[in-house]
């Protein structure tokens, strides 16, 4: 059933928020023009009732599914999106865009500041999850969609999904919120802090003014290595690497790579540097850390009378976003008598579980969407 694949897909670009109609950010600053990189899969039906917005995690991009011409690897959530898959492109019109502040096609700190003709660097305004969502709303309006069948995302994508529900309740029929939190906890912030410190203490960072020069590769790679550890579980790391040694130490002091896990983290760190901008990493992790749905009202008040229906998914081995955090949200939604389905899926893969083939996740998303299709108003 899942052997069909999407045709070759391409990233599209929309430039919007041209002055004087710039986007007003959460902090009051104006930003424009903004370019949005996005991809779509499947066809929008005539009554526009089958559109689903996919929201990517920290380092994801618009390329969620299918293959770009000549690529060997598919998009980051190809396990979930495609013909016959959970987000079935034979039934649904799927949209995914790179977030504001990102570095993979959408305007971010590495983009050219039209006022100076140079990269924004740290002159790029501080952005928030709310601003990411506001840009996505511009895209949805551009595509002519009045109401999304669903918004769906894991990790930072889950934060965006929740923000969609709060900011545009009439535009969202349902939300699929995966492995995330309604506000970043001290531990989650702390782990991001180390990543940011790694980048900022790299001598090549130069207060973000490294464009055209050597990039802060060591710092960014280190940030990614820390990130990777938090995305895996103890068990999945042990199963994947154990204490496997890839080379024996030379006589005397030898601190070069010895263990398989060391080699893996180094590889992931180094390859990340090839595709990701260090300043984007600072801006995006900061946006996530600043995110707190409850900064103005408690969860119950916040979600009161919103018509959205929810699917909340967590993973038993995810210690970065442990299930009990989203359970608090579930309880608040239940106390409002909202239509919320929640499940903790038994996976050993830690936070990464939502990106790894997982029958349970595919099953619940598929059937939840089938119900949403019937109940779409």
């Amino acid at each position, binding site marked *: 059933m899942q052997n069909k694949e999407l045709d070759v897909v391409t990233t599209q670009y929309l430039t919007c928020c041209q002055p004087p109609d710039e986007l007003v950010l959460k902090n009051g600053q104006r930003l424009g023009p903004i370019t949005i990189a996005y991809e779509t899969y499947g066809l929008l039906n005539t009554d526009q009732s089958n559109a689903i917005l996919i929201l990517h995690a920290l380092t994801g991009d618009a390329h969620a599914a299918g293959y770009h011409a000549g690529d060997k690897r598919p998009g980051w959530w190809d396990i979930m999106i495609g013909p016959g898959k959970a987000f079935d492109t034979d039934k649904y019109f799927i949209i995914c865009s790179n977030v504001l502040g990102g570095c993979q096609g959408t305007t971010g700190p590495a983009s050219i500041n039209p006022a100076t003709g140079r990269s924004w660097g740290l002159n790029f305004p501080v952005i928030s999850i709310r601003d990411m969502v506001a840009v996505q709303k511009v895209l949805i309006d551009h595509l002519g969609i009045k109401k999304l069948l669903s918004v769906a995302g894991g990790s930072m994508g889950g934060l965006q999904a929740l923000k969609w529900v709060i900011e545009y309740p009439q535009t969202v029929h349902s939300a699929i919120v995966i492995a995330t939190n309604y506000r970043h906890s001290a531990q989650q912030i702390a782990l991001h802090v180390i990543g940011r410190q790694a980048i900022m203490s790299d001598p090549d960072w130069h207060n973000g003014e490294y464009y055209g020069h050597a990039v802060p590769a060591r710092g960014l790679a280190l940030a990614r290595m820390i990130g990777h550890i938090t995305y895996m579980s103890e068990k999945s790391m042990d199963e994947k690497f154990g204490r496997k040694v890839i080379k024996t130490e030379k006589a005397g002091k030898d601190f070069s790579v010895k263990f398989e896990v060391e080699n893996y983290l180094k590889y992931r760190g180094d390859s990340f540097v090839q595709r990701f901008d260090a300043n984007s990493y600072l801006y995006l992790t900061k946006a996530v850390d600043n995110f707190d749905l409850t900064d103005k009202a408690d969860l119950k008040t916040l979600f009161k009378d919103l018509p959205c229906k929810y699917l909340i998914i967590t993973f038993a081995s995810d210690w970065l976003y442990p299930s009990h955090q989203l*359970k608090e949200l579930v309880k608040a939604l239940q106390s409002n*008598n909202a239509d*919320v*389905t*929640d*499940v*903790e899926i038994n996976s050993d893969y830690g936070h990464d579980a939502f990106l790894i083939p997982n029958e349970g996740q595919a099953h*619940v998303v598929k*059937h939840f969407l089938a119900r949403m299709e*019937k109940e779409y108003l």
Partner: protein
Amino acid sequence: MKTTTDNKIRLDYSVILDMVNAGSSVLDLGCGDGELLSLLIESKGCRGRGIEIDEKAVFACIARGLTISHEDINYALAAYTNKTFDYVIMNESLQQITHPQQAVLEALRVGRHVIVGMPNFCHFLARFQIFFQGRVPVTRELPYQWYETPNIRFFSLKDFKAFCRKNQITIRKQTALGLSRIVPCCPNMFAHFGIFLLEN
């Protein structure tokens, strides 16, 4: 009570369906694969929610298109305000939970009515096994050995009624079930299963 005969609604389900008013709101505590909840929605036009702790059962409920929370019954109700539901159903779940008293009282708080379906651990066949064989009973209805049973609370219909009296719970209706029909007399001796409609 575990199997459904083809094309025929399980006896306990049909008794429960008769107890529930059409169009009401229902919370099924320990809803399993959601069969009863689906019946309530489809044949009685109820609005239904389920609570279930087993992951595979939760998946089955979602496949039926049900709204379901993956949760322990003892922690499931705190979020709900008083009398959120017309009915809270605890069918074949009470004998498996750690704090049954708290669960029933909480169910009565969030529900206007509570329906409890429970196996009768003092059916006469069970009594015979204890008395003549000196063994903890294993019957067709309670087919588990002591070391593998999911049941951790053992009580009879009479025990449950005493529990209701003690907690000042009103029993509005009660039906005693045998294997295939309703038991008209001496339920605590001859019924395998009891279904109670409770109110505060």
